[in-house]
């Protein structure tokens, strides 16, 4: 392997030190307040072009969400100044929407109630497994790990029916009931479903962070008489916390924006916002004004999460190596 392996995969000790140094160098330059300018004029322009290209479509959505419905289908959003017409009614209409069982406000709370546990459960379970894969030696470890990694490709559509069947019918061997169906309702089914579907990627990514922790740290702790429980809790968790937090943001985004799992496991009064927004356009699908406003409302929370945790996030992907 080449000399340096920074973020995702296990690194040898020299690399470890080099990484730490690199990070310190950056911190030094940051504290001195001597931020460099973009590397060159060409790079500046290229970066600006990419930034503009990537932002323009979203800007279009944002502008459109404030336009009058009849204007939206008549001319482009960039002509908003030539065809003035600014309204909040798309937002008020979307916020007032809902069905007989749920308002958009209720769906918003549902989204939160679904997303938080469905983000934390897989993280904890995956970090336990990632620890075992990285630091407990057992036969067939690599194969089992690769098997878990390969499960990422399983299409969710194929996995929905068996899981739903387990929830509603329980487990039976012939006529012998092993489990009753879990007819609990509420959010439990959607929590469990999201937890399961998140595990392969979570284990894959977290394993790379956990295995980056310098071996001598773990050894030292073992010599001091710590068991796996203590090592996991005292060393691994704190050291990979930034990594865990950064994966948490990804998982948050995915669960928050999920529609497929919610369609099957979150019915009626526990439906999240994505599900309600998918219905508001009605059978016609032409109410672009409502769809744009709705889409923007549902983007808000992920953006807030990203804005507030961005620092953590970037540091997180440098995990392990920086503190080792």
């Amino acid at each position, binding site marked *: 392997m080449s000399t340096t392996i920074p973020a995702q995969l296990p690194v040898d000790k020299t690399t470890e030190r080099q990484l730490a140094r690199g990070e310190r160098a950056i911190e030094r330059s940051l504290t001195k307040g001597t931020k460099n300018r973009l590397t060159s004029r060409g790079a500046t322009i290229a970066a600006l072009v990419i930034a503009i290209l990537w932002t323009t479509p979203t800007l279009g959505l944002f502008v459109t969400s404030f336009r009058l419905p009849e204007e939206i289908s008549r001319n482009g959003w960039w002509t908003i100044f030539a065809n003035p017409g600014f309204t909040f009614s798309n937002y008020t209409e979307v916020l007032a929407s809902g069905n007989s069982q749920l308002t958009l406000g209720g769906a918003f709370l549902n989204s939160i109630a679904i997303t938080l546990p469905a983000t934390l459960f897989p993280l904890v379970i995956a970090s336990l497994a990632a620890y075992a894969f990285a630091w407990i030696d057992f036969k067939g470890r690599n194969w089992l790990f690769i098997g878990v990694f390969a499960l990422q490709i399983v299409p969710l559509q194929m996995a929905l029916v068996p899981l739903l069947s387990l929830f509603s019918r329980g487990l039976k061997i012939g006529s012998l009931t092993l489990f009753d169906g879990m007819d609990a309702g509420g959010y439990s089914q959607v929590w469990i479903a999201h937890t399961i579907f998140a595990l392969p990627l979570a284990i894959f990514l977290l394993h790379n962070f956990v295995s980056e922790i310098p071996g001598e740290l773990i050894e030292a702790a073992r010599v001091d008489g710590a068991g796996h429980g203590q090592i996991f809790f005292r060393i691994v968790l704190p050291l990979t916390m930034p990594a865990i937090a950064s994966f948490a943001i990804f998982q948050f985004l995915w669960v928050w924006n999920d529609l497929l799992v919610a369609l099957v496991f979150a019915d*009626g009064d526990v439906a999240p916002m994505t599900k309600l927004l998918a219905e508001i356009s009605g059978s016609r699908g032409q109410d672009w004004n409502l769809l744009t406003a709705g889409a923007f409302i549902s983007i808000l929370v992920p953006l807030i999460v990203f804005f507030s945790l961005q620092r953590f996030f970037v540091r997180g992907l440098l995990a392990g190596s920086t503190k080792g």
Partner: protein
Amino acid sequence: MSSTLHRRWIAPVALMAVTGILLAGCSSEGGSSSGPGDYGKADGVVTIYGTIADTEAELLEKSWADWEKANNIDIKYESSKEFEAQISVRAQGGKAPDLAIFPQPGLLADLATRDYIQPAPDGVKANVEKYWSKDWAGYATSNDTLYGAPLMASVKGYIWYSPKNFAKWGVEVPKTWDELMAVTKTIQEKTGKAPWCAGFGSDAASGWPGTDWVEDLVLRQSGADTYDKWISNEVKFSDPKIKKALDTVGEILLNPDYVNAGLGDVKSINSTPFGDVARVVGDGSCAMTHQASFFDGFITDPKNGNATVGPDKDVWAFLTPPIDAGAGQAVTGGGEIVGAFANDADTVKVQEYLSSPEWANSRVKLGGVISANNGLDPASASSPILQDAIKILTDPDTTFRFDASDLMPGVVGSDSFFKGMVNWINGSSSSDVLSTIDKSWPSD
């Protein structure tokens, strides 16, 4: 201690074995053989699942609100745009609703043959016999068992036009297909613009308005017999009769002189959402468009067509004419069928109510829809076009056929046929399109 290596394996292997047995037991649940069995509890709550959403769903809930109170049953209606996929996932997963409103009889039949749907209870059977024609009862029947009752209905194949403009151009409502083509030519010559407009856009279902066109032509050109055989795949899509129908539609929809009024060229048909067509019909820039009776709502919508509908109003409609004036009127139409997954007392009660003329009148009075229920009072209908549609549906001389694509298996009727129409507008040849659809037909 010689077998440590083995021992290390025993725990995981034992775990896997246990899990495997458990899962195998679970899977034995899958293949059902003895009917849907008892399902559901009479707990005063009946869940209904369907495609009807938004304002239409509100009207639906309003239509049974009084009955709910009187009978102390709480009906919970849930709609989904992904109904077709969801209903099969839920049926297989054992989390089916009590009742489902199927927009495609083909889907109901699919589920019924897999023993998920309860046969219609006696009360529903009696209602269907009394209030629905044999044709309609047939759409809810699979393998000689009645599985439910029809709910609402719509008449397809209306051609919307402006009576004032027709008078201005000196053309009459055509009585035969040839006359229709003549009218088209006259309008094109007088205005110098395309007379027809169409929009196939409808998200994942894009292309369905095209299937309505083809169905209308198959029924009129080759008769009800061929039409029925086409649905059961005895007549293939690549059959000359079907190809002829498609090519006849092509004389209008693929002719750059005839389409796409106010919307662009031929290819713009694909990119235009079907609802947006109401705008150009409403403002008069499009002389004629082919769409079902529900289009009324789009044209009168102030945000969309913003026009009035009636024989002497801005916009009115005539049925796609027969090939031969002597032949009787043949129409295609659509509707929903209510099928039950549960058979508890409450569900049966709701199912019976939904098949009764009381419900039909209650719903039709709220406007926008009609039903093929014979017990329906035509005066309940909210608009002239709906009254016209009821007349057609209840006229014993009309040959009525259900929308063919809704009766075909889902992979054809709501996928490859749709896609085929989109590709056809986009320039694929008729024979290519039709043979591709044939290949998508289910294996057995």
